[in-house]
């Protein structure tokens, strides 16, 4: 092709793109909500004298244009692949490791945060006047170092656990989850590939381990009816934006018991632990107890069920709570990120066990733990 013709093609294609993008933008339907980002997308900016003069219109117009860009998800994916192949993904907070597994960058070691959090937990335990158990969930990266990508930062979960144990005092009992998980032969099955949470398998083993230390027991695994829901893509998948990674199954373990679940944010009781309507989403994790809520109560209607447990927790307890429900008459879950009243107000209800359950990542970053009282 000669130079002149190429010039004309360049002009033509560029102008076509410039004409097509605004046209597509105006014509294509706009989503209100991004399931992958779990946030509402920007709304069309309102044009009035005030917003125009203050520059607010310009800002909102840019967010609106950015949020509803035609082909946005594909473009975001392309950028993520670009970062991956040039080696730069290591600068992000989610990494693609071996065997198609996504990892979250490990929690940083920070003695001060540990000391502050442990002081708050100790004070709470002393106030409770009964033993309080602490279970910190190791990250997948710590458990599966052989699957981490090259250049991954060293996992410091062990140091964090040691430091936390040193600060535990007498009122807190430490549940040693890491050695038990490490000893498992199928460590890879304990965590999802596309999500930072443990799988139902991982949660079951953690629940069994914990209940063993407090003298209770779970039904044997054979007693559960296990159904696998295909097509689960978790938060790590959304954050990494590597859309080509396959979905994985999410398991629902049904002990056959009858449960009533209520939470503060929704009216009425829910029969059963699993909110199957949430299975239609990419991120199916809220199928367990409807995801995060400030206060959740699970009642086991089996008259033989005995005892009550209070769990101060992060989202790892959504799945764990479903197992604890088999071993207690009532399980109460409190999430300090959303529960704004003093937890001590609940203690009057009387609990056989009090468990504090956090993933190490959240333990090191959640600024709400120090609010525990």
């Amino acid at each position: 092709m000669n130079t002149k013709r190429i010039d004309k093609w360049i002009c033509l294609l560029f102008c076509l793109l410039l004409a097509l993008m605004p046209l597509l933008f105006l014509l294509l339907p706009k989503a209100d909500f991004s399931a992958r980002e779990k946030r509402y997308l920007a709304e069309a900016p309102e044009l009035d004298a005030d917003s125009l003069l203050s520059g607010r219109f310009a800002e909102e117009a840019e967010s609106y244009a950015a949020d509803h860009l035609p082909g946005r998800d594909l473009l975001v994916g392309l950028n993520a692949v670009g970062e991956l192949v040039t080696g730069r993904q290591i600068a992000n907070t989610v990494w693609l490791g071996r065997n198609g597994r996504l990892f979250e960058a490990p929690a940083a070691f920070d003695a001060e945060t540990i000391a502050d959090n442990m002081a708050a937990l100790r004070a709470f335990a002393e106030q409770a006047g009964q033993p309080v158990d602490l279970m910190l969930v190791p990250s997948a990266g710590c458990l599966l170092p052989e699957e981490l990508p090259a250049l991954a930062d060293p996992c410091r979960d062990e140091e964090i656990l040691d430091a936390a144990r040193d600060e535990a005092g007498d009122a807190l009992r430490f549940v040693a989850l890491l050695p038990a998980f490490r000893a498992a032969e199928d460590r890879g099955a304990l965590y999802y590939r596309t999500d930072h949470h443990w799988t139902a398998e991982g949660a079951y083993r953690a629940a069994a381990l914990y209940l063993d230390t407090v003298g209770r027991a779970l039904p044997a695994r054979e007693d559960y009816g296990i159904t696998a829901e295909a097509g689960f893509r978790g938060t790590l998948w959304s954050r990494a934006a590597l859309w080509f990674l396959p979905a994985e199954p999410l398991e629902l373990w049904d002990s056959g018991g009858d449960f009533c679940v209520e939470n503060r944010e929704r009216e009425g009781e829910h029969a059963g632990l699993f909110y199957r309507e949430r299975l239609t989403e990419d991120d199916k994790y809220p199928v367990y107890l409807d995801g995060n809520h400030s206060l959740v109560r699970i009642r086991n209607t089996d008259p033989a069920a005995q005892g009550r447990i209070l769990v101060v927790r992060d989202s790892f307890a959504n799945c764990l709570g479903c197992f604890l429900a088999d071993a207690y008459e009532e399980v109460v879950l409190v999430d300090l990120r959303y529960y704004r009243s003093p937890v001590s107000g609940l203690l009057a209800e009387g609990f056989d066990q009090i468990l504090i359950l956090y993933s190490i990542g959240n333990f090191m970053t959640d600024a709400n733990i120090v609010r525990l009282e």
Partner: protein
Amino acid sequence: MVFSSNVFLFFFLPAALALYYLAPRRYRNTVLLLVSLVFYGWGEPVYLLLMLFTIALNYGCGLWIARRRAEGRSAKPALIWAAVLNLGLLAWFKYAGFLARSLRLLPGLGALPIPAVALPIGISFYIFQSMSYTIDVYRGDAPVQRDILRFGAYVSMFPQLIAGPIVRYRDVAAQLEERRETSEQFASGVTLFILGLSKKLLLANPVGALWEALQAQPGTLSAWAGMFAYTLQIYFDFSGYSDMAIGLGRLFGFEFLKNFDYPYIAQSVTEFWRRWHISLSTWFREYLYIPLGGNRRGLPRQLLNLLIVWLLTGLWHGASWNFVLWGLYYALLLMGEKLLAGRFPDRLPRPLRHLLLVLIVSFGWMLFYFESSPALLAFLKKLVLPAAASARARHLLLGYLPLLLFAALAATPIFRRLADKLLRTRGGQALRLLVPALLLLLCVAALASQSYNPFIYFRF
């Protein structure tokens, strides 16, 4: 508005081009003026008044100069008024706060009020550009512009409004009157714009992210690598912006002069400044250094002139003492090169001279970057005191290594030469279509990712 935004790329630019090419030829400067005012007023509409005032002021001063000249009188008072008012605007909007803060340090002035003025975007560029008009007219280097719309289009022209290049009036005077847009020029404009956008989004931004990340990491290696990362970032950011500006100018039929010429391949500081931000160095040389006497009044005077020019060049970059220090740094280096011309530094082997230049310039950027002296001192300590880098720093650096190496190569003419060779081969011409198309796709992808923020702890 900035070029690397969705609103600019997919709404403003298509609309501006459509209006421009649909308008009859005689209205095209007016269209350009109007879209430029929208561009300028987009985020900060109040400063449109300042822009309009600047246009009116310099337009009037130009006419005044022409009239006095026609009446056979000296035009000097008009020029002086133009200079005083332009610099007065710049001083008030850019330097009032800095001046007040600095004066406060003097005894007895501790209570001096600090004026709360926000810096209008691009003011340093369009004030200098406007001044070049009155000076060119005064010197007879360019004819007076009697059409205020045309003049307004020159001052506010959106491609170079916010970050240059500083287009001297005489360089575009003829193009304002008469220009023929061609598909050849348009195509080269598209290509240059995309290259500039790629420099900004695909090189400067990620390398800048590395510099940000490394600053938080301990270790000597972090400091050195960070310094070089910033050196690459500022080059690709700024030269990318200039490329976009020159490319956009071509879309509207304008031809601006080159602003960057591979500055990091220079062998000396003097050469570096002939290659870096050429329009600014030219401005200072034409309108300050040479009028001060340049190098024609003996060595001591030349050194003094260098000092004046470089202190002001430093200050032009920002209202803070570190920019003065940065200017002084280059004043001393340039004086040194004048004094040592033909001696020791010139006799070093070329690679060594080059290495030295890169070190000098990179270090200079640190003076430029750190606006507070405690931060600068802390960084210098990190730079010279041996300390092991954290694992995170080493991993980041290794992860970024391919990009860093690519960027370092891209700062040299290697790719330009390669492209020239390929374009002469059979089928090589197709690359002119494919490479920019691919780059633009990656740019849009990078832009889209900036707004992609998964919110992890979503409730309900």
